């Protein structure tokens, strides 16, 4: 957020408007964590449209994956609902829960989105998230076949990710 404040000051002095240099803006927003991107989306309509673009979320999803994901992954994720949905519905809860478990076991504390971003994500974790994401997509396709939930947008099989961890 410090970078954005400095840019605003520069705005007044040298008539530089970040909104005229979208590529720089995108480069900056690409490096933020999920929560900050969501905050940035509230600035103006231009920023909202950039924040909604999947490229941004793709770089967020795979920023620290080691080893890097297979090349054919982009069409698959896009077909299943896009990177933004992958991150918000699956990756973030999965990784935060896994890292919280690890921290509990090693006796640490604290947390939040920034920590989730900074740790190195192993490929297994990302693969599991994508599999869960796929099941989620499938359930959204047909409501899981259960009559009572036809209009329900939230996938029920991912609900266990949203519940509080029994600390």
């Amino acid at each position: 957020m410090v970078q954005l404040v400095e840019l605003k000051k520069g705005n007044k002095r040298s008539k530089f408007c970040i909104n005229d240099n979208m590529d720089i803006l995108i480069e900056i927003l690409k490096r933020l964590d999920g929560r900050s991107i969501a905050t940035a989306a509230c600035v103006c309509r231009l920023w909202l449209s950039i924040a909604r673009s999947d490229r941004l979320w793709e770089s967020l999803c795979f920023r620290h994956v080691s080893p890097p994901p297979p090349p054919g992954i982009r069409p698959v994720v896009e077909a299943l609902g896009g990177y933004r949905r992958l991150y918000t519905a699956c990756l973030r809860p999965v990784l935060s829960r896994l890292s919280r478990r690890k921290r509990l076991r090693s006796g640490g504390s604290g947390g939040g989105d920034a920590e989730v971003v900074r740790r190195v994500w192993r490929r297994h974790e990302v693969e599991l998230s994508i599999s869960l994401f796929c099941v989620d997509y499938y359930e959204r396709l047909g409501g899981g076949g259960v009559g009572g939930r036809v209009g329900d947008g939230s996938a029920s099989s991912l609900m266990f990710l949203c519940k509080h961890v029994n600390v």
Partner: protein
Amino acid sequence: MSPPDSSVTNSGSASSSSSSCAGKPPDHIDNLLAGAGYRVRSSDLRQVAQRLERLETVMVNAPSDLSSHLANDAVHYNPSDLASWVDSLLSELNPPPPAHADLPDFPDLSYADRTVDNTSAWVGEERRHVAAAQQGGIFPPPLTTTTVVMDEDSGIRLVHMLMTCAELVQRGEFSLAGALIDEMQLLLARVNSGCGIGKVAGYFVDALSRRLFTPQTAGLISSAHENEILYHHFYEACPYLKFAHFTANQAILEAFDGHECVHVIDFNLMHGLQWPALIQALALRPGGPPLLRLTGIGPPSPDGRDSLREVGVRLAELARSVNVRFAFGGVAASRLEDVKPWMLQVGPKEAVAVNSIMQLHRLLGSDPTRGSPINTVLGWIRNLNPKIVTVVEQEANHNQPEFLDRFTEALHYYSTMFDSLETYLSHPNKAFAEMYIQREICNVLCCDGLARVERHEPLAKWRVRLGGAGFRPLHLGSNAFKQASMLLTLFSAEGYCVEENEGCLTLGWHSRPLIAASAWQAVPEPSPPLNLISHRNQNNL
């Protein structure tokens, strides 16, 4: 005299070993107790037992000076008349000794709940009513103490009563078992039956009463549609099915490595929740996805909807969006043994995977005329020459011939399973998941013969059976183990554990394995075609 506890069991077994009460006149004196020096009428036996229990409870909870008073100073009139002696003791104990008034009040919610529960329970029991009246109509602290302590005792007592009742059922003592069921239902009203042992006991008492009183409809028959709904809720509420699906998928994925035409046969398609993950994994595998054929077996839908085909269409849509060539075939069969291999339309050059999630145990029931269908089915599976057969089964021994053994096993198994569900306190699907489990319990306990399909057997037995049918085990690799462990850490409950057992994975709750996943491959036939023909002839007999 012998301590109350053993006389309770003595009176129980005495009446059962002497001929049943129905045949004797009501004031007949019980033989065996008479031999021990007590005169008790057979018709009174049950009440005497109840009162002895109550006496025991009060004596256990009474302060030490009271029990010494009972032991030394109390005057007993005619102790051989057991019924009135117990009554006299209870009436001595009813006015509470002054020591109880010093006990602190318990201000918490459980006290308030107890009072609500106890009013209804007490109305039916005259003794307690008398006790309450003697306290001036308010609920005093000493009674709180006894009810709180009795709660834990009640749980243990319920378990003992359940075991006794099961033994009575096995021996054919149905009238006594029925009386015991009434007792247990009264006790259940006092225990907290919303969680813990109370809840499990509630289901088991229900199953026993179904077995005794409504044997025709005991099995909780439900339509295929209802089964699917309950299955779906069970899938969402706990990790057992997810573990099964993900582990089997990982094994199938590894077995299909390098093959371009693959065919998966699913013994129980349901909503096809297992397959999206496999389709996606195949889409992302290095070298590109193969042509995937899926044949799903399921029960026929009664109302004209082709539910199998609907599932197939949805899976096909998903496969299309991730660019996997996909073909679906559905086989509608109400029982697995009705499926014939030609219905599966297996091509000659395909790599075949057979996937059975909790289906093989249904084939273990044997018909006197036909024998067990399990051998026939395992035979044709083997003849398909599959690259892998994934088998996931409940890790329990519910197929024993003796009812009491089944009952004991089921009590342990399902109480562990309900325990693992306890953490999902406010999950909306939890009630449906419990109904799903309840159906299994009722089938294990209430049905017999061909109606009993939940014939769970432990992994060791399946190993022997599959080994004898010409399969050799494939080790599930470390990838499957890692994936399963990760999946479990996502669930908020901390008690799940994944263990590796000679190449198979088991998922359990607090070190009791509840579900076991294994993978198998057909041992290649070394013998020339002549032996093959005789093998087939043996299968046809």
